């Protein structure tokens, strides 16, 4: 009998969680909360949600896309009105004992609607106003998230838009124009929108030694942690970088550095293989489904997850500036973990859809 859930994808998810939990536990003392217990509960909930989301038929997602998108926007507006501020961002809403980050969930509904919109454009290339509509679908939630402000999460919407436009098809000349616009936009942003500390973060990527105790501090410490792991690492709970609190945000943004310090090249390779397996299985779903909607949906999820993995690891390894993008399925955080699992559940719904006799 064909499996209803992809066992390889589940293996990758469980493997990543299995690496994440002991890593978080090893820094619990440093961070000062019991991360293991909370993240274990979120992990179990996440797997449950993954399974539940996979049970829903694909055409139901398609039909509900607009409603869910509206609900996502409503959540983002609600967080601006009644949100709980944490460290300067008003990104969380308190629901009883737990706090929820609506921007993590609005992303799934944005993907559902953008995919539906693209899948129904049957022409070879998108017309300009169709492309503009796609951009608008992504832009509304992004603008609301920028108001929070939570740049890390807002950035994760960018690959969704790019992948959607790519799948929908744009003439080459439009891509060239878009790249030129992006460059101009980046220049303007650099000169007028970025705060001095944000500029310093970008400068230190180019020149890592320019301010080792200031803006370059986090990345430098992260590189020391990763590099000192060597081939086989110090062992969990042993590395001086994580245990002596050199590393900032070691349970969230820099969780990978803790793992790298503890398990060395062997561990980081295994972890990368797990992400590769996960993305390969997502690619497999995208390339085998017969549904246009299914393809777009799965590719958008894959683009988003890849973006987060690449941007987070790029930051930890000193290639990209620090942005606050977390590592999916590995960094501490309930909302992020649940929303990632829910998105993978949607991927599995597409996987199951091939069993539906057409």
């Amino acid at each position: 009998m064909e499996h209803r859930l992809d066992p390889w994808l589940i293996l990758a998810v469980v493997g990543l969680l299995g690496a994440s939990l002991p890593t978080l536990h090893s820094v619990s003392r440093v961070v000062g909360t019991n991360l293991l217990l909370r993240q274990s509960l979120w992990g179990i909930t996440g797997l449950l949600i993954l399974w539940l989301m996979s049970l829903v038929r694909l055409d139901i997602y398609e039909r509900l896309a607009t409603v869910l998108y509206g609900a996502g926007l409503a959540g983002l507006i609600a967080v601006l009105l009644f949100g709980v501020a944490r460290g300067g961002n008003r990104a969380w809403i308190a629901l009883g004992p737990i706090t929820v980050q609506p921007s993590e969930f609005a992303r799934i509904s944005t993907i559902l609607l953008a995919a539906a919109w693209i899948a129904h454009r049957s022409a070879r290339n998108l017309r300009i106003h169709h492309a503009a509509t796609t951009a608008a679908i992504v832009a509304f939630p992004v603008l609301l998230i920028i108001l929070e402000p939570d740049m890390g999460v807002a950035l994760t919407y960018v690959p969704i838009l790019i992948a959607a436009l790519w799948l929908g098809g744009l003439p080459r000349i439009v891509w060239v124009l878009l790249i030129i616009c992006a460059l101009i936009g980046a220049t303007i942003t650099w000169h007028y929108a970025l705060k001095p500390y944000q500029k310093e973060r970008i400068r230190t990527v180019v020149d890592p030694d320019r301010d080792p105790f200031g803006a370059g501090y986090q990345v430098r410490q992260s590189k020391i942690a990763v590099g000192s792991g060597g081939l086989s690492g110090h062992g969990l709970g042993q590395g001086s970088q994580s245990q002596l609190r050199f590393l900032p945000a070691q349970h969230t943004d820099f969780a990978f550095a803790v793992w790298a310090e503890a398990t060395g090249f062997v561990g980081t390779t295994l972890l990368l293989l797990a992400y590769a397996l996960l993305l390969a299985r997502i690619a497999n779903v995208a390339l085998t489904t017969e549904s246009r909607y299914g393809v777009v949906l799965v590719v958008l999820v894959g683009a988003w997850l890849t973006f987060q993995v690449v941007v987070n690891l790029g930051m930890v390894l000193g290639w990209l500036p620090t942005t606050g993008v977390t590592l999916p399925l590995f960094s501490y955080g309930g909302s992020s973990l649940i929303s990632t699992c829910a998105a993978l559940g949607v991927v599995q719904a597409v996987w199951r859809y091939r069993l539906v006799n057409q």
Partner: protein
Amino acid sequence: MKLREDIGPLRRRTVVIFLLVFTALGLIHLRLVHLQLAHGAQWRNLAENNRLRRLPLPGPRGWIYDRRGEVLAENVPSWELLLFPDEATNLDETGLFLASEGITETKTFRELLAERRTGRQAPLVVGENLTWNQVAAVHSHQGDHPELSVVSRFRRHYPFASLAAHAVGHLRPISKAQVEANPDLEPDLMIGATGIEADQNAFLAGSSGERWMMVSAVGRQLGVVRETLPTSGHDLGSALDMRLQRAAAAALGDRSGGIVALDPRNGAVRVLYSSPSFDPAVFGGRLSRSDWQTLQEDPEHPLQNRCLQGVYPPGSTIKPFLALGGLNEGLIDEHTTVYCNGSIVLYGHRFRCWRRGGHGFVDLERALAESCDVYFYLLGQKLGIEGIARWLQLFGFGSKTGLDPPFESAGLIGTPEWSRRVRKTPWYPGEVVSVSIGQGPLLVTVVQLAQAFALLANGGHPVRPYLVPEDSEIPAPLEINPRYLERVKAALVEVVHGDHGTARRLSALPMAGKTGTAQVARLQEGVAADELASHLRHHAWFVGWAPLDKPEIVVAVIVEHGGDGSGSAAPVAGKVIEAYLGLGQEDNTIETSDVEAPTAGPFPSAEGG
């Protein structure tokens, strides 16, 4: 089927996207090869030479001055030794090193580690007030003990030591509960424990800063990662007058007791001295606990503030207030005369006057000047216990004066209702007789008596005693007939200046007042008061004011087990008043500000001589 036809371009574009995805993952893996395999040893070397420390920077506390600008509390530089426990390889070895250098005893060190609060990166203060030799010893062993760091900080210092210990107060380490309640507070913070230090803690305390710095494997500072600077607290001028305080302490000598002097015009407390006192330097640190344990176990209770916390029967010093009550209620007038033959039988008991032979015929003035007990037995009986309680409450007895509310006692005015509720025994009618001469269930503090006499001295205006000036409402004058007030004041002048006054040995000074002798134990027949064991002897009181025409200072003195008021307490008060008057007129005017530049000269009166 349309769907199948349409999916072709989507598939091709999907393949492109996933090619990009796997290229990115491959590049990341190459980066890991570079960082972890090719250069792993270099990074490992850096990691081992890498220490990040958070150094709390305490905000300096404000200084405390007396009214003439003399320093009561200051900060002096001190070497402190910090331990960063996370960096230690073997804490037992660190403990041995500290013990061998005489910096911290092993037992104290273990207690410090056990009390350590996790969750916040704060170093432990394991050594204070280090000597140069100890600093040198730590520096020379820095390579073995990179977890130790000598820092220059401030220590609280009280230049007058035991002389102003109770008034100024001292510091204590902040409690664990307070740190937990407010995570912004540093665990090694010192806060005010008693006196002005506690009362004005919020004003005096600075706010802490912190410095994150990178240090090498041998504890050398490499660079500051970030820093928030501390802010200092405010300096504070108190109403105390150390010259008077010194005179008061000298007059009391090594006897136990308390002295309060205040300005009856505004309530400014000039003297607050409790004996025996202690050296607040004992509390200056966090580590020397054994020293203050001996203080706490001292049978003389040096930590107790006898001016504020000690409660005593007021004895005859209460009589002027009962006299005022009697006059105002019309129960007596200045001509009412009583015959005293040395004792009187009331409620079936014989109550004695202190003078065995009796005073003969006494009117109000003689009754106060010579302190006739029989006169007041009868007056107290007329007023009744409720009347007595009402009048005494009016003068501030039985409630806190507000000088230092968390620490001071309210005293006690025994009433039948109190007896039922608290003492759980019935009220004996005869007790009113004891209360009317300031014995029995009637307890006051020294500062309450000073406050009440200030009201007599200034003509009926209640004052609130204070050590630190603050804005507060001026209480309304009491509704007492000024004529009665003048009668009682005149009688208290007679106490000092009359031929038979109980404090006539002070008649050289322009002062008035009232002596008091408070029984500690009931006298057995045939035993003279001065033959009692020292801890059973009477407490001696004197409360008075000077100068006579415009009173500027009220002095209240208790000498514990000092015998009788005229013999032991009155001379002490006389010395304080003499010192005050010796300071000269221009020094004693009320200043607009209570702090002024130190005059730092001899007494102004020396100019004339």
